[in-house]
């Protein structure tokens, strides 16, 4: 009933939020959702620079619903090329069906 879509998920360092958002906007996505996240990955030997004694997460998780898989992979490609050499991060995509959106 809804519209077939792809949910691209990018987990990366907090610092990159604004720059990743720019890539997403440029790709023509209608929006994105961000949440604070922590995590462990291969780069975890690297410090995030956040105070470790504090109680906050140092990653962000960005979710973008895209109408085509091409748009999702394009965003992921650009983000990976620009940032993932130097910063920690992961990108994956799931199938989804958008039931309601103000614009999609």
């Amino acid at each position: 009933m809804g519209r077939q879509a792809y949910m691209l998920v990018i987990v990366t360092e907090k610092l990159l939020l604004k720059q990743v958002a720019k890539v997403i906007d440029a790709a023509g996505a209608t929006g994105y959702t961000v949440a604070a996240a922590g995590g462990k990955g291969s780069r975890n030997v690297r410090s995030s620079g956040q105070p470790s004694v504090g109680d906050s997460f140092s990653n962000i998780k960005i979710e973008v619903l895209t109408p085509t898989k091409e748009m999702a992979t394009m965003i992921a490609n650009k983000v990976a090329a620009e940032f993932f050499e130097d910063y920690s991060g992961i990108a994956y995509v799931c199938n989804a069906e958008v039931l309601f959106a103000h614009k999609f």
Partner: protein
Amino acid sequence: MTFLSEFGALFLDKLQSPTLGFLIGGMVVAAVNSRLQIPEAVYKFIVFMLLIKVGLSGGIAIRNTENLVEMLLPALFATLTGIAIVFIGRYSLGLLPKVKMMDAIATAGLFGAVSGSTLAAALTLLDSEEMFYEPWAAALYPFMDIPALVTAIVLASIYATKQRQAAEARLNQGEYFDDQQPPQPQNTRIKIWPIIQDSLQGSALSALLLGLGLGILTDPTSVYDNFFNPAFRGLLSILMLVMGMEAAARLGELRKVGQWYAIYAFIAPLLHGFIAFGFGMIAHQITGFSYGGVVILAVIAASSSDISGPPTLRAGIPKANPSAYIGSSTAVGTPVALALGIPLYIGLAQTLMDMAG
């Protein structure tokens, strides 16, 4: 050798300040894996309170009396020290085996930059020792902080370009792999103004400058006397606790990046402080810069940035491993500056004062 013995006594005396007690207490708390936490919101607010207070007190004093021309020479020396620290790091730490040049440059940048908390601790001790210092002395902060960060980012960029050119040269002699494009000559002129802007927009420097501005332009004396000033020492003691906890928590990270960083992080703060102390004494001779001011100059040189520096470097030198520079600075550099540096420079200044008569 009355100089040494007098200095020794003064140094030992300073070592017993309660500020240090909280620092060490924090290390112990973290070392025994306690779940004690100072919430991040509170930590951030304390840092804000300390830096706006430092700014306000400077601003109020400047508004009342000061001849800011006196500040020119110390500000110049602060800038020179900040730049020198980065070069020293690049040509010492950077050349050691198993140390990556990028990591070394970033580490030197962080040690050249300034810690507001270390500065606040020094001001407290100077006040309780009743040592005079120029009220604008805390305003030397950005004059060392920003040049150090800019120098580090520029040096890193130059190094990266050279590396790339060397790689290209090698490639041009050989052949290309099938699926590999010849590398595009990148014309990356590094822009300095955005780095300066980024530093100024950081929360620590913003709070300091806001306080300075408010102190100079409005008359916040009553709110300063009744609120910002009385809370200062108490909040500082809690911040010291956090810094001790951080230091212990980062020790593991430092261990991973190798012992050279630990050695650098131990020696560098003291060395940087002495360099700045020397510059300060020159200013003392020429323009009558106070002994207290000399101590402040030495302490901001000895300190390494804990709040604004790391994200600026993470963005400016993305190839550098943050564990290297944050580990070095937080786990060893800052405790050394706080626990040894401050007592050292105050003791030294007091000894020199006594000898001068």
